[in-house]
């Protein structure tokens, strides 16, 4: 809670202004491609901000998911929109209206200004020191089975949130498939450079994912960062032209997608049947159980993210009426 020295102040002000400026540019620039690229830059600056705020776990997640995968998803979506629509979108700049209508258009801005003023006042009025739940977390970290407090919260203290959240991810993919996905894309041949890159990087990314998973016990890392890295490997493979075959989609794909959520449910059931509370681990087994849950979650998150990037509904043979 020290007051800032000059260098920090300059750094923080620059970062803060930069964030607001990039966000504004991303939302205001006339070309969509520009907006997306600026948005990815915004994500990277967010990651830097997380590091500045001592939240390295989030920084990793932001780089991998927030900037990386979201950026890839946005660019892929833009590429699939027809070329005509990628240029300046006409109604981002509406035609001129009468005075009354123009005055009415200012209404959101005025409203936003009021909301902003109220929020700023509320934030400034918060107590300057508040330990939140950090004391409780510290006191129970010893019996949580891991040493990284964030992993302890995610997989043990508030593991139930994570259980639901893994289902949100699965739900997004089920939702995409229920829309029928996208029509299959014609894949251009990858070319030698991309092919080599995919061949070299895929094992590296898998190794990296395993490292994140293992590192999450002690320091920054964990299932989400690892899963996102696996997802990135999946995206790279797709860019290099790899496509899931029908057999893969029918059995393997489903099995891996379900692995994470199913393990969570099994562990939950097990704890209930054993007469404990939901997801209550015995301290001596906590570490193993958390690693088990995280391994399943990593696989499922990775494949789900890759599947979301793929966008097409895989041909699994169930898509007929009988």
């Amino acid at each position, binding site marked *: *809670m020290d007051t*800032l020295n000059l260098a920090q102040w300059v750094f923080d*002000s620059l970062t*803060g202004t930069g964030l607001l400026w990039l*966000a504004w540019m*991303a*939302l205001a620039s006339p070309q*969509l491609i520009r*907006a997306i690229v600026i*948005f990815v830059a915004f994500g990277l600056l967010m990651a830097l901000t*997380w590091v*500045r*705020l*001592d*939240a390295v*776990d*989030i920084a990793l*997640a*932001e780089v991998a998911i*927030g900037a990386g*995968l*979201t950026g890839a*998803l946005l660019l892929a*979506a833009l590429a699939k*929109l*027809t070329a005509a629509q990628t240029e300046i*979108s006409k109604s*981002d700049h509406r035609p001129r209206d009468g005075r009354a209508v123009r005055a009415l*258009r200012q209404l959101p801005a005025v409203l*936003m200004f009021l909301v902003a003023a109220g*929020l*700023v006042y509320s*934030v400034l009025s*918060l*107590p300057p*020191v*508040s*330990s*939140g*739940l*950090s004391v409780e*977390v*510290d006191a129970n970290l010893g019996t949580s089975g891991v040493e990284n*407090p*964030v992993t*302890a*919260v*995610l997989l043990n203290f*508030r593991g139930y949130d*994570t259980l639901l*959240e893994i289902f*949100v991810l699965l739900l*997004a993919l089920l939702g*995409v498939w229920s*829309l029928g996905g*996208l029509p299959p894309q014609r894949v251009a041949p990858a070319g030698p450079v991309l092919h080599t890159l995919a061949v070299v990087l895929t094992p590296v990314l898998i190794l990296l994912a395993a490292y994140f998973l293992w590192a999450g016990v002690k320091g920054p890392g964990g299932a*989400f960062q690892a899963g996102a890295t696996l997802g990135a490997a999946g995206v790279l493979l797709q860019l290099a032209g790899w496509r899931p075959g029908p057999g893969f989609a029918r059995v393997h794909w489903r099995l891996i997608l379900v692995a994470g959520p199913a393990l969570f449910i099994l562990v939950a059931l097990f704890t209930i049947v054993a007469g404990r509370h939901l997801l209550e681990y015995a301290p001596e087994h906590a570490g193993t159980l958390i690693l088990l849950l995280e391994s399943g979650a990593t696989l499922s998150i990775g494949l789900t993210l890759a599947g*979301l*990037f793929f*966008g097409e509904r895989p041909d699994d043979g169930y898509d007929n009426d009988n």
Partner: protein
Amino acid sequence: MTTETLYALVGVGLFILGLYALFVRANLLRKILAANVMSSGVFLVLVALARRTGTVAPDPVPHAMVITGIVVAVSVTAFALILMLRIAMKTGQTELPDTWSE
């Protein structure tokens, strides 16, 4: 002003910017970007204020909450993008019509 307040206020600013753009921008992809900026703002307020513990280590609970939030955000974004593409395929538009009808 402390670092915590500064970044928390930037977070408020991002929330408002995103909300405003979600209102006034018509293009669906832009609206999706706006929603992402909005959620980044909320996360920033959450994490910035978590440093007010008075000790070196920040409160880890908000960090876990934000990681949950980031995963939720990417799921929603992915779904929203496919929905947008389906609409573009169906209507040739990347905007929602002002009035809705059959």
